[in-house]
């Protein structure tokens, strides 16, 4: 999709759903199209809020997302949903089943749902998910839900790309809390105890309370609120949704939203430069073959990799100087 024709952009900015879908496909499949796409959409962004929904497999993330999305629509918002499911490490294929739980949204034209396979992403999202969120934002959607892969371990990618993180838990996942890296507990903005229609809800709430007691205060912020709900029976979801909305207002009001956007852009700039440099100069560094041979040799004979690293870097520096000089002429 490189060199995207103007009519395509017109279609996209007029609300063409297929155009929007095709842009997401492009960021999934064609990294070389990324600069062109970001050039167009970042200025077009309208400040949609990104709500990450994460938690262990099967806790009801999709059901919760659908219930929150329904309420956002009712409150007059337009809603985007990115639902990520895992790519099979064996076949490279993926079974994308989240949409099934979002059936009752699928007639609503205020909602745009996109399933994504995690592909090379290891943090519960696919590498293209943040860009897909940018696209939905530019498309004019103002609440963007990002459902991660069901994660046993805390996955921090979702923190980077969301303004707010909902951590979904269910009775019987008390142990999971222990296993979750401290990070997610730190970073979750709200704990949603789903499936409260099942036994064991109290036990889970108790262990959350315990955690609250022993946790050091998070960098100047109080322990996240805990809400109890049953997304399947649609119980307690009004309160959960209200809490999410309150946190959103808080996030915007306190300047955290701005902060988040800034650090997202910062990260984007940094990683794009790294990518550019690597793409441009990795051959000089001996990408592939030489690096492999060096590693082989190190295993064989022992020694430090640094002499090679220094040598490769100076090759690149010399090249950069040459390029500057030739431009100077």
């Amino acid at each position, binding site marked *: 999709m490189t060199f995207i024709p103007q009519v395509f952009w017109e279609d996209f900015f007029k609300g063409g759903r297929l155009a929007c879908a095709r842009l997401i*496909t492009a960021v999934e499949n064609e990294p070389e199209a990324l600069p062109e796409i970001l050039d167009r959409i970042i200025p077009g962004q309208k400040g949609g809020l990104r709500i990450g929904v994460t938690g262990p497999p099967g806790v009801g993330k999709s059901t919760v997302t659908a219930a929150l999305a329904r309420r956002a629509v009712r409150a007059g918002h337009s809603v985007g949903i990115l639902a990520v499911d895992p790519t099979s490490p*064996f076949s490279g294929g993926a079974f994308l089943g989240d949409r099934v739980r979002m059936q009752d949204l699928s*007639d609503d034209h205020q909602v745009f749902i996109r399933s994504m396979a995690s592909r090379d992403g290891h943090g519960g999202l696919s590498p293209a998910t943040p860009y897909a969120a940018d696209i939905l934002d530019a498309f004019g959607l103002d609440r963007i839900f990002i459902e991660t892969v069901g994660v046993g371990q805390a996955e921090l990618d979702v923190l980077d790309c969301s303004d707010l993180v909902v951590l979904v838990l269910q009775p019987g996942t008390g142990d999971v809390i222990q296993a979750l890296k401290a990070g997610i507990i730190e970073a979750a903005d709200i704990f949603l105890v789903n499936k409260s229609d099942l036994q064991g809800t109290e036990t889970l709430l108790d262990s959350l309370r315990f955690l609250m007691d022993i946790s050091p205060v998070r960098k100047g912020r109080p322990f996240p609120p805990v809400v109890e709900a049953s997304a399947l029976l649609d119980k307690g979801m009004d309160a959960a949704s209200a809490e999410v909305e309150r946190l959103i207002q808080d996030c915007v009001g306190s300047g955290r939203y701005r902060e988040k956007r800034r650090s997202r852009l910062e990260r984007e700039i940094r990683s794009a430069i790294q990518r550019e440099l690597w793409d441009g100069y990795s051959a000089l560094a001996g990408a592939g073959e030489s690096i492999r041979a060096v590693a082989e040799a190190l295993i064989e004979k022992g020694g430090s990799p640094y002499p090679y690293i220094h040598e490769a870097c100076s090759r690149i520096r010399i090249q950069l100087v040459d390029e500057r000089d030739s431009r100077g002429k």
Partner: protein
Amino acid sequence: MADRKIKVIIAKPGLDGHDRGAKVVARALVEAGMEVVYLGLQQTPESIVRAAVEEDADVIGLSILSGAHMTNFRRVRELMLSSGLGDRLLTGGGIIPTKDQEKLQEMGVGKVFGPGDDLQEIVEYIRANARRVPG
């Protein structure tokens, strides 16, 4: 594109709960490296095509054992054309008499498979015919 994954929508339109075929095929496509969006039962042509648009799917596969294949394929195909998905493959399977298969092909539907057809053949067919015009 080296890493272009084929994206397939699998759905069962109408009131027909026999989802053995849909599930087996969905699984075979995943194992063949495709990305499968499973919509499940009781879908309308509208909900199917809408999902195909949002997913930018390369292929729509319908499983119909209810005898309603003519109605459903025709309607899905019409909606695909009016939504800009005319270049995508519409295929499927079920209990579909040869005579109807021919009529479906005239409407622009691809090959439809029946009981006893080999999974590998279905996978290969989709791989070979998943259409997408470069943007």
